[in-house]
């Protein structure tokens, strides 16, 4: 990397970290919303 390795690799690592975080957070958000929706369905039993 022509002496720049210590700048280039952390950049890629960080950006891929951000990509991974986005995926994880979005999946978790969706799963949690689903769980909450199921819970409120179970609680109310009937829709509006």
């Amino acid at each position, binding site marked *: *990397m022509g002496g*720049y390795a210590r700048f280039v690799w952390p950049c890629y690592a*960080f*950006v891929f970290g951000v990509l991974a975080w*986005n995926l994880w957070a979005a999946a978790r958000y969706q799963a949690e919303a689903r769980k909450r929706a199921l819970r409120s369905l179970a609680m109310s039993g009937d*829709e509006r």
Partner: protein
Amino acid sequence: MWTWFYRLASPPFVYRTAGTLTPWFMAAAAVAIGYGTIAGLLFAPPDYQQGDAFRIIYVHAPSAWLSLFAYTTLAVAGAIGLIWRIKMGHAVSAATAPIGASFTLAALLTGSLWGRPMWGTYWAWDPRLTSELILLFLYVGVMSLRAAFDDPGRGDRAAALLGIVGVVNVPIIHYSVVWWNSLHQGATVAKIGKPAMPGSMLWPLLAMFLGFMCFYGAVLCMRLRGEVLNRERQSAWVREAIQS
């Protein structure tokens, strides 16, 4: 005349479409980012001025672009929600904020890591990076404003309004920072992104742009499904959608 518009914005339609689109976006993103990363790191020739440090732009430039694109999406979707009272506008706006903020952070960090060898310091108050920092503040403001309201409906509309005010201000902020910078230092030493790149350098960059956009699309769809479920928890269609 507007029926297609409202049908497009109906929660079940959004929920289903987002679900269908996610894998396609994801696959496209994986291919494009994979190609861009490998080609950018291994096959693109080093820049004659910046050497191998220029390889940082393959991740920096798409992140920076995405940070602006996501903020615009946030504002436009918020405006749609505010003006036509379409809840899905607010849902998109809410879903896009954390994604955009994370890419703003990525652009800031990669920018300053690139700046270290170029300018000899991690933070040179470069106008682009400074604008990017202010953009991060704008994201934080919108997100905390939305979270501060107990009533999600009001939080949505308040955040939408702030988003619109912010998007009007982004160019003003950028140009004022450029003006300020021109006052304190002469021509900036080196700038990220040059015209007339050879193809072997350019193609990976374009692939990365495409890949990041697709990735954004995929993550947005996933978050959007969550937002829709949170907002429509009590409607009849949700029961069928999540119990099947």
